[in-house]
């Protein structure tokens, strides 16, 4: 068997194996964050904690997001800075993952002169996915009010907002085939998802005309909104259930390693307490009709809901199923440049969101066998160009630490940067 033939055979065999669900699973972060340093440790049982988050936007600054997220007062100058950067269509996204997992020890097998290693994994995670696309007019209506549109029309069509939180219990397997010329690793995981909270708003058509002197308001709105049971959306609330599937494949040849992953292929079925609001209306409002103001002044507005009901068309409670936005990730990494330099590049895309393809390249320097650090640069996603740093440390006795951020500029230049994020991991090998 020549080398080329052997690799081809192995790849073919891997793909078949992957789709026959006979291969093992490998978590993406495990794949990226640790396994390149100590290959020999990939086969060790481990328990670990991971936390990562990312909030990014192409027009909204970190300062604005921070002020909003911290429930502080958003003053006019802050709004003006953001407003000046807004384009006709804008994006904002966020992702937060935290959890811990377990990886088993390795089970060896020999098959046709190859060494085959099996491991199983289990993890539990808290997930948050947020995605929004909005028009400039929507931001200005929301944060400035409609007075600036007096005598004009504000167009906030094509507004999309999706927010979901869920808990993920994942069981998977990793299968590593060690060949004299290559190492292949495949992974597969199945997750049970507990739906905690969900809210989506989709505005296909949204226009608000405010007449001079506010003599009338015309609203042209086609909106669909679904929301999970709003009476309980705290951590652990059971408002839905679903499954998801993760799979990946890694090929390591010489000093190059290629990996391809599909994450979050799945769905959550939200229960019948979920609400559906559908509005498709043109609403002309000149004020509440009063027969004779000289008789009595009687105003009864119980809540904002009363006004909404003026043009509400459908409000129902029903269960629904919503797929997760699946993510495709491809990465390449190598030590070919220098034994102490680890170079890597990653491209990812999450389908069904407002993000554009996200590309990240970077390099790490191995200062010692137990410590490395490096820089990276990214472009795309929900934002533009950002720089990042990361570092890892093997503290011995099985303890390993990892921390990094892809938004170093976001930490240093809050006013201008449009993204913030970071990740932190702890791992204990046994």
């Amino acid at each position, binding site marked *: 068997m020549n080398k080329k033939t052997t690799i081809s055979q192995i790849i073919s065999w891997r793909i078949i194996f992957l789709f026959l669900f006979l291969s093992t699973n490998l978590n993406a972060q495990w794949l990226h964050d640790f396994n390149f340093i100590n290959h020999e440790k990939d086969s060790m049982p481990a328990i670990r904690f991971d*936390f990562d988050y990312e909030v990014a936007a192409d027009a909204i600054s970190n300062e604005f997001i921070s002020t909003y997220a911290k*429930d*502080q007062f*958003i003053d006019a100058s802050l709004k003006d800075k953001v407003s000046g950067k807004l384009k006709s269509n804008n994006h904002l996204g966020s992702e937060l993952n935290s959890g811990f997992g377990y990886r088993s020890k390795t089970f060896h097998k020999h098959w046709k002169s190859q060494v085959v290693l099996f491991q199983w994994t289990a993890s539990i995670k808290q997930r948050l996915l947020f995605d929004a696309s909005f028009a400039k007019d929507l931001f200005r209506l929301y944060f400035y009010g409609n007075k600036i549109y007096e005598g004009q029309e504000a167009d906030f069509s094509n507004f999309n907002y999706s927010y979901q939180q869920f808990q993920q219990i994942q069981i998977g397997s990793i299968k590593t085939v060690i060949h004299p010329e290559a190492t292949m690793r495949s992974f597969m995981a199945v997750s049970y998802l507990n739906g905690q909270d969900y809210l989506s708003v989709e505005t296909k058509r949204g226009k608000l005309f405010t007449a001079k002197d506010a003599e009338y308001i015309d609203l042209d709105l086609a909106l669909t909104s679904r929301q999970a049971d709003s009476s309980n959306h705290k951590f652990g609330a059971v408002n839905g259930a679903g499954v998801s599937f993760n799979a990946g494949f890694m090929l390591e040849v010489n000093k190059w390693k290629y990996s391809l992953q599909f994450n979050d292929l799945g769905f959550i079925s939200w229960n019948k307490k979920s609400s559906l609001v559908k509005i498709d209306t043109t609403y002309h*409002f000149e004020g509440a009709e009063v027969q004779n103001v000289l008789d009595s002044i009687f105003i009864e507005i119980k809540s904002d809901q009363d006004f909404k009901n003026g043009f509400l068309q459908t409000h129902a409670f029903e269960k629904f199923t919503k797929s997760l936005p699946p993510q495709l990730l491809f990465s390449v990494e190598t030590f070919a440049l220098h034994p102490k330099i680890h170079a890597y590049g990653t491209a990812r895309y999450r389908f069904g969101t407002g993000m554009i393809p996200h590309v990240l390249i970077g390099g790490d320097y191995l200062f010692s066998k137990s410590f490395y650090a490096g820089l990276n640069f990214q472009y795309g996603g929900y934002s533009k160009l950002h720089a990042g740093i990361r570092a890892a440390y093997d503290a011995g006795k099985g303890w390993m630490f990892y921390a990094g951020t892809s938004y170093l500029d976001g930490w240093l230049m809050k006013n201008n940067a449009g993204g913030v994020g970071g990740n932190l991991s702890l791992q204990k090998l046994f």
Partner: protein
Amino acid sequence: MSHFKQHRFKRYIHFLVLICGMIYFISSCKRDDQRAQWDTEIITPLLKSSLGIKDLLNDTSISANADSSIKLVYQNHLYDVSLDSLFRFFDTSVTKVYNIDSISLLDQHIVYSVSLGYLYPALGSQNGTSTIIPPFTFPSTPDTTINVDSLFQTMTLVTGYIDIAITNGFPVPITNLIFLLKDSITGVYLAQDTFALIPPNTTATKTVSLAGKTVNSKLTARIVSMNTPGSGFTPVLIDTSDALTADLRIHDLHPSYATAIFPTQNLVDKAQAFKFDLGKVQLKEAVVKKGAIVINLYSTLQDSVHFTYSLPNATKNGNQFIVTRTLPPAPPGGISSFSNSYDFTDYHLDMRGDLSISQDTVNTMYNVFQARVDSTGQMKTLSLNDSIYANIGFQGVTPAYGRGYLGQDTFNFGPASLYIDMFKNINANNFQLQDVKMSIDVENNIGADGTVFIQNMRSVNTRNNITVPLTGAILSSPILIPRAIDPGGFNAVPAIPAVTSYVLNGSNSNAPAFVSNLPNRIDYSLELQTNPLGNVSVFNDFVYSDKLMRFDLNLEIPLSFVADDLTLFDTVNVSVNAVDLSRITGGTLTLIADNGFPFDATVQMFMLDKFNNVTDSLFANTIITAAPVNANGKVTVKKKSKLIIPVTQERIYRFLHETPRMKVISHFTTKPTGQTIKIYSDYRLDLQLTGDFNYRTN
């Protein structure tokens, strides 16, 4: 488990606890009530309304003329003649003690006989033979007791007779027969009489009065003496069974007291007329709207008494009013009684009394009272001293209708006041109505003529203390009111009222000035005379209780006027529920007024506290400009004005929490100045309230 494994397991646990704690902390550190805040500027329409003249002049009837110009129409009662003021049926009762007219007893029949053989034993041997009977004196017969206790025990007679019929069955005449009947118990002779001659086979009768005598149930009869002249020379056939028979018939017994078996008889049978006091009203006919007849009866008779009370002239559906009832026997020395009330509703009363006597009587009814006892076969005691006490009462009788002569009378009404809401919220410095039509309308549903005198009438404006007396011919001449017509009588067809309208306007009175005073009260006094010409209908006046005489004051005010600072003011309640306006930090409310009326309006709304003290005013500027009029004096284009209300948090709080009422004052001045303007039905004042708020949201 080895020591090494145990140590590693503990480290697992510690690690898991640490991680779980971090996850929980991250997930739960955010509170729901914490939200970012920012300021927005919201402009929005809030309320809109359109006011016509009906809305501006609250509580007023408004109608349009043919040219769609507006007139105010007002109507209110001045005076309603009540039926009570004409006549009423006072509660009336008829009390009567009915003594027993007479008591009748059954006739008694007693037969007493004595045979020839008994009186003349010597003839016994010649029985069956013919022989000559010589003159002979019969011996006295012994006392024979007659027992009649199956008929009566005792009776004291007012009147009564006993017929003594002696039938001579002997073959020879009887002469000088003395017959004696006495009361066995008292020994009192009831009857003793002498029959001088009774020929053979004939009957001689004597009647003896028993008046004043008391008769008990045991009697004694006896032939005291009797003779015979004999048969002379003619032999007669001797039959010793031939008898002399005394047939005693006691009849026409009317005791003053008796214990006896009484026959069925009416003890009382009286008809009696009685009169209602209706004052000057003389009714021939009436219909009862409601009322009752209460009957109270008391009896001392020791027998069941069946009484019947009837009012032959009171009928309902063709049936006369009649009550029958049986009183139980009164105990000895006691009374039995009965009391009940009977509905008298809807009875038709012919009040001419007993029609068999006269038909000219008025206000009179008559009733019939009967008391009867039945023959029960039982021994009862009755006395002429027994009586029946009857009290017949007419209670709460109100008429639905009356016909007759309603009398000639005078009724004064007032001084009285009529309060008018029409102008209560209006003041003006100079208000001149071009003209008004004021009328006093009388709808007479009574079948009687009348005259009305308006003694005085004054327009009183208590807000400026100006009083304008009504002047004109109406005060010096009466208003003649013809009678209504009632074809066919009671409810045959609806009565036709006579409607009289006395119109007051600028040509015959000072009515425009009277109304331009914008009175909130009219003081007046009236005098009404009925039947000023007397009984011209010859007892055919009529009145229905639900259709009388009604006096109305009507105003028709064409809204064509000149006004300088005509002021409308009103207080309106404010109720704002569950509105959280605390996030409004400031701004303005704008009242956009599209004025379609030809007058300038200055509007201000004042917040009032619970003591009605003014705490704030709303508008910064208050002028709503008049719409222009064309050459015909009519508005064709509205005029827009904006009134600004500055909004602060303090004012919002005051409005929401300290303002239960608001006072609205509007001043109107007609334009062009000094020109009389007309108000048309299509004039509108369109109002729209918009808000321009600084709103702090989250």
